[in-house]
């Protein structure tokens, strides 16, 4: 496999596609959940927060197992026929990223001073306008949450392998390819693929830092 190898490009583009789609879905669900948890007071909140925190350290192989069971022929979602497809990998990575994003966004929102939230309300903001304004104030923490989630799922191998199957040209991503090449003893190729993974992560982090710099 060389730098111009079409197989390499298919692995890199699939890695990016799966990771970014999972990140977008997890963000759409996780950011509002995190904002709500950061601002709301309700009975049982501590238990709910504890569950989110537990989800942040959910082992990827456990997620892989659960998604596998859901999508397998005997599972309740078998009709989707997603097992060993990129969609299954997206589902698994979304499940891994969602509690991470929700938990870190919750922390960022809860760190916005309570008096500032009161000031926003006192200026006449509706509950939705309050949430939006607080989210803007917590944007550095939100960006950090997205970066952490991206880093976690772009390099994730257990769930991707279990529900994707590492099928050449179909579900093979950088992390599963590295694992396979290491198993075959081709350490040079595994290292080169690892280098690509690092380049992807670095590019996304640099772009995020640029955004962060603009917003500060």
């Amino acid at each position, binding site marked *: 496999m060389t730098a111009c190898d079409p197989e390499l490009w298919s692995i890199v583009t699939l890695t990016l596609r799966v990771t970014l789609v999972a990140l977008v879905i997890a963000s759409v669900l996780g950011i509002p959940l995190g904002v709500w948890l950061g601002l709301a007071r309700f009975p049982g909140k501590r238990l709910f927060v504890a569950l989110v925190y537990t989800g942040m350290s959910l082992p990827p192989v456990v997620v892989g197992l659960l998604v596998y069971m859901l999508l397998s022929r005997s599972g309740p979602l078998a009709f989707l026929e997603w097992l060993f497809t990129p969609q299954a990998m997206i589902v698994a990575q979304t499940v891994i990223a969602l509690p991470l994003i929700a938990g870190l966004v919750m922390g960022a929102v809860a760190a916005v001073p309570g008096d*500032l939230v*009161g000031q926003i*309300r*006192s*200026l*006449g903001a*509706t509950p939705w306008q309050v949430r939006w304004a607080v989210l803007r*104030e917590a944007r550095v923490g939100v960006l950090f949450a997205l970066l952490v989630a991206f880093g976690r799922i772009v390099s994730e191998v257990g769930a991707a392998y279990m529900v994707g199957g590492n099928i050449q040209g179909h579900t093979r991503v950088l992390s599963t390819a590295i694992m396979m090449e290491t198993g075959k003893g081709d350490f040079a190729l595994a290292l080169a693929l690892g280098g690509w993974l690092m380049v992807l992560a670095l590019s996304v982090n640099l772009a995020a830092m640029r955004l962060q710099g603009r917003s500060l």
Partner: protein
Amino acid sequence: MNRTLAYRLENVAVQHGWREVLHLPTLEVFAGEILCLVGPPGSGKSTLLRLLAGLQRPSRGQVWFHGELLNYPMPITVQRTITLVFQRPLLLTGTVRSNVEYGLRIRGDAQRHQKALAILERMHLAHLADRPASAISGGEAQLVAVARALAIAPEVLLLDEPTNNLDPARVALVEEVVLADHKLRGTTVVWATHNHFQARRAGSRVALLLDGRLIETAAATDFFAMPRDARTAAFIQGQMVY
């Protein structure tokens, strides 16, 4: 004289944990008056203002606003007639101008640019309009917070010691602008201050709070010239009463 009530509080108490930080059998705030709340730090002034602003739910008792019993959180239509300026300036990320426009923007006010600029000019802040709010001094930030509150032309303006950390010229500016707004629009103002000279200058009535209790409420002239309560007399003479 039959005066219209803005607020009426009946048997209102606020508890933080086991501690009762505010206990008011009755308090009336008349529409269009400037009621100055005086008292030492920790006397309950800020809690009372937060209660009037709808940010603090009473632990018990009732709050009436224009004859309607208030539920907390307040309906947005009521919330939008009242605004509170906190003791420390709480500015949002963005420019000074975007901060002053904030309340108008969330109301969909098409005239927000002109209105914000007008109040910024009135407060000698126009030159800072495009400066990030994080890049101005503490005193300037406090003026921006006052400007932001006045920009939305509230029916009730609640001020929580907004001039505490300002130099005398800026204190005079805040007083001048608030009093001019009050005169022009008949704004109801509840102004917490521990500066009784300010209360004397600005207030139509003055109320003394000690340990969360209302000690005395009177017309400003009477409050300072003929205090009824010994603690009021001691307070205005600058003696320790807490």
